């Protein structure tokens, strides 16, 4: 069995980058340590180039457990782009704080290695390894400020929830393997289709599927497994929070998409309603929680719980059948998830970048500190306005099209449940606008507090903020740029 190393290019590039970063950290001293950031960024650019070189290919290796297709490549590009943005917002933050820089860059590249592996995984084992490659560095990164009690406690809480969810997910995986005799996702789908009759499935198999879904529910911080998210996000160093809220969550969604649509599609009748209800609860709890927050990081944390609810909505209408309509429903649902994840990455990383820029040197992160930000720093104020409007789903931003895609997915085939979910989305979008607009009003309408400092975000961070804000607006005006790309991404099931 020859291994197709070309197909593994992006992963190999990231793995080598991680090892080089660690070695560089050992050989550099003092202020020169911050040079590991450009080293990591260079490795990421190489990985992006290798991904683009594979564009359009359909390959698989390791006996079909690792696959290159349009789905895998699109997500790989999304994750690698996110990594570049996170590196951009991390430089000053870690160089100026007395943090463990070398370790941080090693860990973040390793975590992204797991994410890049995730969309290529077509096997429970590969999925598990990819998921843990994301999680274990994340546990350490959250606790990186080890002299800070907040950071340590956030890390411990995150760790306990993480290992518990993995244990539960693994029990589900082991039972599914016991039933089907294979760990390959397509093999599982075939075995289930061959042995189970719709409507009278083996209860233990359904329980196993739900255990796996629950495990991913922890990862994407869906209700009722969301309670760790605000605390962990508030306690972690801010660039790590951005990484957790966007990339780690997106990786969880990729894993959920793969097991849900590739392995357990025949059982959709059992898990789809559950995920639909969870989605409704998640966005409502997230938005109501966000309304009460006075700390911007916690506000964004609850907002990202709500966003996870929106992304879960299309899973609620998935179908188990193999007729043309069911396949169309699943395909549209999948594309809505993909489009929303792209939009979410752009706007949420942007919002966290602004928060880091404002907090630099001053450490200010209360919503009251954003009063008059527009007057003090038009760049940060303007960009924050764009990101918040986009998170709310206002016209001329990419957020509107992302929400539009979800409504479209919910109404491909009009059902009562689909309409309930769509109505929930609309109501929640209105609630969300309350707190987004309150913050925007503070930025532009209120006078800054006496002696409020002028934020100095630094060059790299400004570049990331401007780039992401421009992307939010450009994609908002010309959504075809991304929808044309995502429309060719098909959920290849028969492989």
């Amino acid at each position: 069995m020859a291994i197709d190393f070309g197909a593994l290019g992006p992963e190999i590039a990231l793995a080598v980058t991680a090892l080089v970063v660690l070695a560089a950290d050992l050989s550099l001293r003092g202020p020169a340590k911050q040079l590991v950031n450009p080293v990591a960024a260079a490795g990421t650019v190489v990985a992006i180039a290798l991904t683009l070189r594979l564009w359009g290919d359909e390959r698989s290796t390791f006996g079909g457990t690792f696959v290159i297709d349009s789905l895998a490549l699109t997500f790989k590009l999304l994750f690698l782009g996110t990594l570049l943005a996170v590196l951009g917002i991390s430089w000053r933050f870690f160089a100026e704080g007395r943090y463990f820089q070398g370790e941080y860059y090693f860990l973040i590249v390793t975590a992204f290695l797991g994410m890049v592996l995730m969309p290529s995984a077509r096997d429970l084992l590969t999925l598990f390894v990819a998921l843990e490659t994301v999680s274990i560095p994340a546990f350490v990164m959250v606790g990186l400020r080890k002299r800070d009690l907040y950071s340590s406690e956030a890390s411990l809480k995150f760790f306990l929830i993480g290992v518990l969810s993995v244990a539960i997910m693994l029990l589900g995986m082991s039972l599914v393997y016991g039933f089907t005799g294979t760990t390959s996702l397509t093999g599982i789908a075939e075995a289930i289709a061959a042995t189970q009759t719709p409507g009278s499935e083996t209860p233990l198999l359904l329980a196993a599927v739900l255990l796996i879904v629950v495990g991913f529910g922890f990862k994407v911080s869906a209700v009722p497994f969301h309670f760790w998210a605000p605390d962990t996000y508030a306690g972690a160093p801010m660039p790590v929070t951005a990484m957790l809220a966007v990339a780690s969550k997106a990786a969880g969604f990729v894993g959920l998409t793969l097991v849900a649509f590739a392995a357990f599609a025949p059982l959709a009748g059992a898990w789809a309603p559950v995920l639909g209800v969870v989605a409704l609860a998640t966005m409502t709890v997230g938005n109501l929680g966000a309304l009460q927050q006075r700390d911007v990081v916690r506000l964004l944390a609850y907002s990202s719980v709500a966003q996870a609810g929106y992304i879960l909505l299309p899973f609620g209408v998935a179908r188990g059948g193999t007729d043309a309509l069911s396949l169309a429903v699943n395909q549209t649902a999948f594309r809505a998830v993909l489009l929303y994840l792209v939009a979410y990455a752009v706007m949420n990383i942007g919002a966290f970048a602004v928060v880091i820029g404002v907090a630099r040197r001053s450490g200010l992160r209360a919503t009251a500190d954003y009063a008059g930000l527009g007057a003090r720093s038009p760049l940060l104020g303007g960009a924050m306005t764009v990101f918040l409007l986009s998170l709310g789903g206002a016209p001329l931003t990419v957020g509107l099209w992302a929400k539009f895609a979800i409504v479209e997915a919910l109404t491909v085939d009009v059902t009562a449940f689909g309409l309930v979910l769509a109505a929930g989305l609309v109501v929640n979008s209105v609630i969300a606008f309350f707190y987004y607009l309150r913050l925007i009003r503070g930025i532009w309408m209120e006078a800054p507090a006496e002696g409020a400092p002028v934020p100095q975000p630094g060059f790299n961070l400004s570049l990331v903020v401007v780039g992401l804000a421009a992307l939010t607006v450009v994609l908002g005006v010309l959504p075809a740029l991304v929808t044309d790309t995502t429309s060719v991404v098909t959920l290849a099931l028969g492989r």
Partner: protein
Amino acid sequence: MTLGGQYGTVAVMVVFGAVLYAIIMLLNRLMRPSVPSPLKLSTYECGVDAVGSGWSQMNIRYYVFAFLFVIFDVEAIFLFPWAVIFGDLTSSTTPSALYALVAMFLFIATLLEGLAYAWRKGVLRWE
């Protein structure tokens, strides 16, 4: 042998062991002299008395060594399946013996970088 037969063997062993133990202890009791003294009840009949409770705190440095040991010890699990098939590989098989050797050394090199990291950070020094 049936399942009952297998467990039957175990049961016979348990009964036999218990009876043997009882006989030996009984003989011992019958034959030995009995001279009780408070000294015989102390933890150590000879040597230094124990100080403090049994729950004393370990030096934290043991933990760091234990962590390192666990990581490198468990990684060795991947050597076993490799070693099982390595004997069957030659230059004409796929993968070739050389290929398998290089692959394993790359794996070990990755682990060694971790060890080098621990070394340079001063984790291995006892001071």
